[in-house]
């Protein structure tokens, strides 16, 4: 991704886990991203994973109006135990040529 490193403006968000407060908000956001970027699955993936975060797992940023927040995992946190992939978000109407 294009970080503004040359001007000293890089941030740590790339290192966080992007999350949404609800399934509906995640799906809406992804659908809007797909309208703007047909290849977005190459960059951020194509599947929805759901689970519950606890205070022991890490720290989250403030949830924005679209439901998104960044989650910074504590060392040793293993979300594989509490999250599972529930849905493929890619519509099949568009196939790469």
């Amino acid at each position, binding site marked *: *991704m*294009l*970080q*503004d*490193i*040359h*001007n000293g*403006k890089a941030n740590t*968000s*790339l290192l966080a886990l*992007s999350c949404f407060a609800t399934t509906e908000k995640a799906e809406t*956001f992804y659908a*809007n*991203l*797909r*309208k*703007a*970027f*047909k*290849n*977005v699955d*190459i*960059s*951020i993936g194509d599947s929805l994973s759901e689970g519950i975060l606890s205070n022991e797992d890490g720290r989250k940023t403030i949830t*924005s*109006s*679209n439901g*998104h927040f960044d989650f910074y995992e504590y060392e040793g946190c293993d979300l594989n135990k509490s999250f599972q992939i529930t849905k493929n978000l890619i519509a099949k109407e*568009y196939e*790469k*040529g």
Partner: protein
Amino acid sequence: MRRVEGYDIQYDFSSFRKIADLIYFDGPLLSHFVSSKGDDYLFYWVDRDERDNRWMVVRVSLANLQKYVGKELSLRELIETPNDGYLYFVDVDNDIHYHDVKLVQPSAVPEEYLPEADSYYEFEPTPADDADELMTYELTIPYKERNHFEEILHKIGFPVSTLKKVVSQAAIF
């Protein structure tokens, strides 16, 4: 990544300054930059491989950019009508080295590199940390009057970029 038909050129983007990330998810995907001349550009992410991210760079008018953010224009409409009549493509590697800059006709852009027809803005912009100074001109001169205002400046040979700096400095002091 797929091959894009265009003309190889040398173009230095290092003087561009970021105004805002218009779409951001795990990193910027669509960002508004201004050149040292005061022109407005969008950096639009289109593709990646294990080494590079590919960006389409589009010079846009601020009026059209505002229409996009105001959901009056789709991203596709904005991209298909670049101010220059053509688009730039640039690959950026993991060390933020810009290379393989191409000048591309809008008609030569692969369909998978274009947004959907209904790609209206459904996101929240994130202003750059130092965008206040740069945005002062945009905030001072109303969008609806800007095109006419800048046309007059061009006719009398007054550089818009100079005016932007003057207005920004005046606002700071």
